């Protein structure tokens, strides 16, 4: 299992190769890409930043959690930082398992956990020239008791 923050284009074929094994009957690849509209605003691009050592540690922990829950020990995740244009892949997750149900469930779990707690931030640039740090639904925003 591998988790990395990268500053280059994500090579999804390489991720698929990384989790490949003859014992797997199912491989799920999730790719998150920069969308042209967010909250009714026309997006021109997104700058991603991360607290890299903590983000990699937290993503690795999420992969371990998925392995414990779903038995998916073949999983890899890369999240890109820097300036991304429309359509660029910001995140890719490849998960493989003998059966599809576990691979699907693990892929979903990994992405949702990433969105909730991995220290990565995005600043959207809009077509009108403005830009803004984005807060996403579901993210933990403050200390909780």
């Amino acid at each position, binding site marked *: 299992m591998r988790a990395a923050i990268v500053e280059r284009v994500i090579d999804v074929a390489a991720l698929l190769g990384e989790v490949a094994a003859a014992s797997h009957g199912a491989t799920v690849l999730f790719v998150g890409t920069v969308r042209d509209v967010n909250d009714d605003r026309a997006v021109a691009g997104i700058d991603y930043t991360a607290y890299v050592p*903590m983000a990699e540690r937290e993503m690795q922990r999420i992969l371990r959690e998925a392995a414990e829950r779903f038995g998916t020990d073949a999983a890899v995740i890369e999240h890109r930082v820097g300036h991304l244009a429309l359509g660029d892949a910001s995140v890719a997750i490849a998960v493989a398992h003998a059966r599809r149900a576990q691979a699907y469930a693990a892929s979903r779990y990994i*992405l949702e956990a*990433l969105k909730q707690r*991995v*220290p990565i931030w995005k600043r959207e640039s809009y077509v009108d020239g403005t830009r803004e*740090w984005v807060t*996403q639904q579901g993210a*933990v925003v403050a200390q909780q008791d």
Partner: protein
Amino acid sequence: MTVTVLLFASYADVLGCESVEMSLPAGATAADALSRLRALPGGGALPPAPLLAVNLEYARAESPLQSGDELAVIPPVAGG
């Protein structure tokens, strides 16, 4: 003792820097460092209870700090 406070994204913007070296008395907590941070120019814009991490792990405000610790003040995350 000295700790390094890291700021990111919108928090780095409001304080105008990405890290602050801070001298604190022995026994100080993350909350003490946060109070010190609020007194800096722009620090008043930080929310009442931001997420915190000490040495790469999420931590509570009452966590005690040791010299050399890295305290990160974490804005709402937005990966994906």
